[in-house]
């Protein structure tokens, strides 16, 4: 015999409805879920009627800064590696007064590749423009970089110490100068093939995990295409540099570092002294290569934005930037938010990149290039789940490419020499 069920009760239903309505709701989905959702929406083979760029605008801007930094660091590494041996090709770079080329990078999970056109002229001035009109102009000797966005009518002026070794240096490198330093001592011929209708000779260079192929016009020895394999957004892609043009007259106005009239100007000054002081105080090897300062800078920046947590990985640029970024996540209030982000009005001034954004993406881009230049077994990152200042915890190690010494960076952001038995297991 069973107990008869209670009589239906409207009050109970109303109380239950009220209880569900009052369920405490945490901040929105995790940054990773939000980034993944955006990526999946953007990757879908479908274009909304107004054909706006599907990639979030700030993310595109941030990624562009990282890519520019990455290209700068790559050229720096290649030009100092002593590997390519294609003297006639290199001579063309060395004789160039101006150089333009197009860089195309397919981004994993994003429909449209990132396309950037580089204009370089002597004296360390570079202009990088994207199809949507966004332009970044850098003047390395002057320590200035200007990014303008015609659609948003915004301009960002970044000033930095031109003699510094921070990531901003890679982001505003003297690209043409780096090309001119390409070494011609050794070469691995790849044979010949026709590229863009022209017979071309190929050369390959390996440095660490980085593989670059350079194809040059057989008749003129001028490069036609350069392919560089890159880790990007947690995946791998190949950056292609093409459409090389040498010595085209370039209007000086292309390199004007004044923001156009009517643009909202944001000024960001990167202070290199902080990182230099940190490096000196903690035995960071801030020599010609900037690997250690870049790792430390990135971890420090990320931890400051994410309650002391370190990133899961170092090469997922979108996750690095999105995490802890109130401009990127509408569900989370920033430290200065007076009201929860969920009630923040959707209208108002467009969110801007911050100094932290610029540093973060510059570190990320430059670091990606440095890591790519190391053999895969010669470095490892162990920062996932680790917090800043965790005691005696190695979060990153690498084998120095020249001295072959093992170096490690700990969770307190100090750098030390280590022996193999001190390294965490992979």
């Amino acid at each position, binding site marked *: 015999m*069973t*107990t008869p*069920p*209670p*009589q*239906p*009760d*409207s009050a*109970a*239903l109303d*109380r*239950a*409805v009220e*209880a*569900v*309505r*009052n*369920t*405490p*709701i*945490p901040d*929105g*989905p*995790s940054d990773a*879920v*939000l980034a*993944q*959702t*955006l990526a*999946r*929406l*953007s990757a*879908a083979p*479908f274009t*909304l*009627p*107004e054909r*706006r*760029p*599907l*990639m*979030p*605008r700030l993310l595109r801007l941030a990624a562009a800064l990282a890519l520019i930094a990455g290209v700068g660091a790559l050229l720096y590494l290649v030009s100092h590696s002593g590997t390519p041996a294609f003297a006639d090709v290199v001579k063309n770079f060395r004789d160039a007064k101006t150089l333009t080329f197009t860089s195309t990078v397919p981004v994993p999970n994003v429909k449209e590749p990132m396309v950037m056109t580089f204009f370089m002229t002597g004296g360390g001035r570079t202009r990088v423009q994207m199809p949507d009109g966004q332009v970044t102009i850098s003047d390395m000797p002057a320590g200035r970089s200007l990014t303008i966005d015609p659609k948003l009518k915004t301009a960002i002026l970044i000033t930095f110490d031109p003699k510094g070794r921070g990531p901003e240096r890679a982001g505003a490198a003297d690209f043409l100068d780096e090309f001119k330093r390409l070494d011609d001592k050794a070469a691995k011929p790849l044979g010949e093939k026709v590229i863009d209708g022209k017979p071309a000779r190929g050369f390959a260079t390996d440095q660490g995990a980085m593989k670059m192929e350079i194809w040059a016009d057989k008749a003129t020895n001028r490069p036609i295409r350069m392919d560089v394999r890159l880790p990007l957004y947690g995946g791998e892609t190949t950056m292609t540099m093409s459409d090389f043009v040498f010595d085209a007259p370039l209007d000086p106005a292309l390199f004007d570092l004044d923001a156009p009239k009517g643009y909202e100007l944001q000024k960001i000054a990167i202070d290199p002294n902080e990182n230099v002081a940190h490096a000196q105080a903690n035995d960071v090897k801030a020599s010609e290569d900037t690997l250690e300062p870049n790792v430390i800078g990135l971890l420090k920046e990320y931890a400051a934005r994410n309650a002391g947590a370190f990133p899961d990985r170092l090469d997922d640029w979108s996750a690095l930037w999105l995490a802890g970024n109130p401009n990127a996540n*509408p*569900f989370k209030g920033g430290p200065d938010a007076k009201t929860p*982000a*969920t009630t923040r009005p*959707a209208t108002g001034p467009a969110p801007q990149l911050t100094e932290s954004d610029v540093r973060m993406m510059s570190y990320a881009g430059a670091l990606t290039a440095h890591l790519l230049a190391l053999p895969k077994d010669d470095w490892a990152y162990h920062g996932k789940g680790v917090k800043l200042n965790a005691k005696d915890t190695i979060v990153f190690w690498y084998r120095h490419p020249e001295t072959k010494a093992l170096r490690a960076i700990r969770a307190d952001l100090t750098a030390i020499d280590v022996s193999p038995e001190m390294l965490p297991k992979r």
Partner: protein
Amino acid sequence: MTPSWPTLLRDHGPTVWRTAYRLLADRQDAEEVFQETFLAALEFSRAHDVRHWPALLQRLATTRSVDRLRRRYARRRHLPTVPDTADDGDTALDRVPTASASPLEHLQTAELSDRLRAALTHLPANLAEPFCLHALSGWSYQEIAQHLGLPSTSVGVNIHRARHKLRDLLAAFAPDSTDPATTRN
């Protein structure tokens, strides 16, 4: 003019999140429904003109959340015990408001919430959706009628039928009662 996906995420993502989490009370489930909702909206927009994005997204979040509840409680009926914990280890008691209620009231509120969630899984979709939109999301009969393409009278009837069934189900789910899913013919 159709907004971009980042704009839709920014403007309506919070509502989608609240809708999903309120029904599911579980971060992992809510995150999955959050993503499913926007991808379903993408699919929908390929074939239809979307006249009202917030309504579409809230409807999708509601229906998918109820679907997810169905799967959750179907699993529980096949398991001897399922700990009532969210992904962060919180118990039902931990998830209820803490304003000034006693622990016993907390527990009762948490039990009521869970009983309603379980009861919703026994409603057919044509009753569950208007009920949730009205009772939990605060839509008027007229708004529901407009966005579901139904006469207002039908909406009223459906919500009335949903309430009637839910009352029965809540009574059946009450302590000392057995799961109606196992007692129904």
